[in-house]
């Protein structure tokens, strides 16, 4: 037996969630040729098919691009700290891609490694992730090359799989998922089938060997020659999580905020002295690959890449993880 959710029941159900005061995010068609995850104000905004994947990622629901950590006020010679309020609203992501959800356990590691990040953890607790198994892939997708697939359940609370044009099979995977779908689904004998993913496009063992001895390989600069040093890759990546902490305020006080930052900016590692330990783009691209495929794995035992392909899709120069890894670690 399986649990079934009809396509026509999805929108009224989302309207009820919104009416209950929950924040609901999902893919939205922003322009004719652009789909992005965004907070929904109406269930009609949800787009579930007709595209491969949104051009951004769901990380923003747990790790917003801009977050106030606390406020401060100067009181004579004293400084008064004003704690920021932690979020309280339950939030649900509907129609997330498996390559987005799989990034969340990876982020959990980073945000709980040396300190427990209360903002991240609170948002994470408040978030239920409903993934939708992929119905298509494009030339930039490479989930199967990093051990994932179109129906992978990592980081997901419930997985939807299309049964036909009308219905989805709902596989609840966690208590959060079961709570969310309680009373919403109907029992059925119909079962969804997950499509096959894209062919494996690079060799992880070969990559490991290359990284072990390839730190000074000229391949890095050769690959990075066309990189222009923006953060379109990192900011649309489900797993990239670097941030900068800055104070915004005036003579009487202000706010300490956390903003996204990215390793492809030359400013990212620039020292106040003027020295930059990553002085060229080859070194910066090398860092991005090493972080995802060696540094993070050594520390947390998993890859920091889910194969979503957003880096390449969004790169004005067509670079990104896949083009680089296809060059340095090609499949036989």
């Amino acid at each position, binding site marked *: 037996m399986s649990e079934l959710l009809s396509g026509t029941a999805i929108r009224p159900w989302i309207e009820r969630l919104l009416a209950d005061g929950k924040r609901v995010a999902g893919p939205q068609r*922003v322009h004719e040729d652009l789909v992005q995850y965004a907070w929904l104000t109406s269930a009609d905004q949800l787009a579930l098919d007709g595209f491969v994947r949104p051009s951004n990622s769901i990380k923003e629901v747990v790790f917003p691009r801009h977050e106030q950590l606390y406020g401060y006020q100067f009181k004579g010679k004293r400084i008064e700290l004003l704690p920021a309020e932690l979020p309280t609203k339950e939030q649900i992501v509907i129609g997330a891609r498996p390559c987005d959800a799989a990034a969340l356990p990876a982020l959990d590691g980073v945000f709980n490694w040396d300190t427990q990040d209360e903002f991240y953890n609170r948002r994470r607790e408040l978030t239920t992730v409903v993934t939708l198994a992929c119905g298509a892939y494009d030339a930039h997708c490479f989930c199967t090359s990093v051990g994932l697939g179109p129906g992978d359940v990592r980081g997901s609370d419930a997985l939807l799989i299309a049964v036909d044009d009308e219905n989805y099979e709902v596989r609840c995977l966690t208590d959060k998922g079961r709570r969310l779908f309680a009373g919403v689904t109907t029992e059925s004998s119909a079962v969804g089938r997950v499509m096959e993913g894209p062919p494996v496009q690079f060799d992880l063992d070969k990559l490991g060997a290359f990284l072990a001895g390839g730190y000074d390989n000229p391949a890095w600069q050769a690959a990075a020659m066309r990189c222009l*040093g*923006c*953060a379109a890759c990192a900011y649309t990546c489900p797993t990239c999580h670097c941030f900068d902490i800055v104070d915004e305020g005036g003579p009487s006080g202000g706010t300490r905020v956390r903003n996204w930052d990215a390793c492809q*900016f030359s400013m990212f590692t620039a020292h106040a002295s003027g020295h930059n330990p990553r002085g060229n783009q080859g070194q910066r691209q090398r860092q991005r690959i090493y972080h995802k495929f060696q540094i993070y794995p050594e520390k947390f035992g998993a890859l920091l890449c889910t194969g979503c392909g957003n880096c390449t899709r969004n790169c*004005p120069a*067509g*670079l990104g993880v896949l083009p680089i890894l296809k060059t340095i670690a090609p499949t036989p």
Partner: protein
Amino acid sequence: MQEELRQTCRRLLTDGTVQVVIGYGQAAADDRVVPVFITRPEDADQLVWNDRCFANLAKYLLRKEVAALGRAAICVKGCDQRALLVLEQESQIDRSQLTVIGLACDGVGEPRQAKCQSCDVHTPRQADITVGQASAGNPPATADGRYAEIEAFLKKTPAERMAYWKAELSRCVKCYACRQVCPMCYCRQCIVDKNRPVVISTSATLKGNFAWQITRAFHLAGRCVGCDECTRACPAGIDLRLLNLSLAKAAEENFSFRAGMDPAADPIIGAYSQQDHEEFIR
């Protein structure tokens, strides 16, 4: 035309005229055309020319990693060449050290990009070598056509325009792809990167995004050549072209000036005249 381009570049590399050709090549991983840097004559066959050659390669002349490859030849479309002229006028490139390969272009993208609809530089000007011939069938370009989109936009009420920009700029994540692809964004330290003190908030909030995009547009006034790379690069699909068009229109209407068109015309931001009708100039 592609074969002619390859032959030309092979010759330039063989006879030592240049050490690198900055051009377009077919990506190995997918169907995209990407910038390539050809340094050996035998690799000239990697060069391609088709209507997916979107990038304005002029930006690469400003990158030190590319400059380190040596004397360069660069492939440009007509719109890209305008950027070269501005960079030359602003003393950012030494034109005498550069070989410019002009690629006759009937437009890029399917359907054609917005900028191509009103293009009047199908054949790049001031190129050292021109490859190919533009089709005689390209539509004639007029000032009306150039600014049709911004004129239509300006017919909206101020409230409607504000609502539009709020919705669009709310998606900006400050990845600075717009800045990084822009040939005119070459400041050694961008104003948004100044942090002692902070001039423009680094936050990708609505306020911070307005501050960034408005500042950038102003810095491009009378300088933007309309290559639309910022619009193409934006991962959030923000039509930055509209901002640039509005300033280009002002420059043409008030100063009869179009950036990168006339080598003899003084840049409007970089020159002044005693005859200026504003008092402050005297």
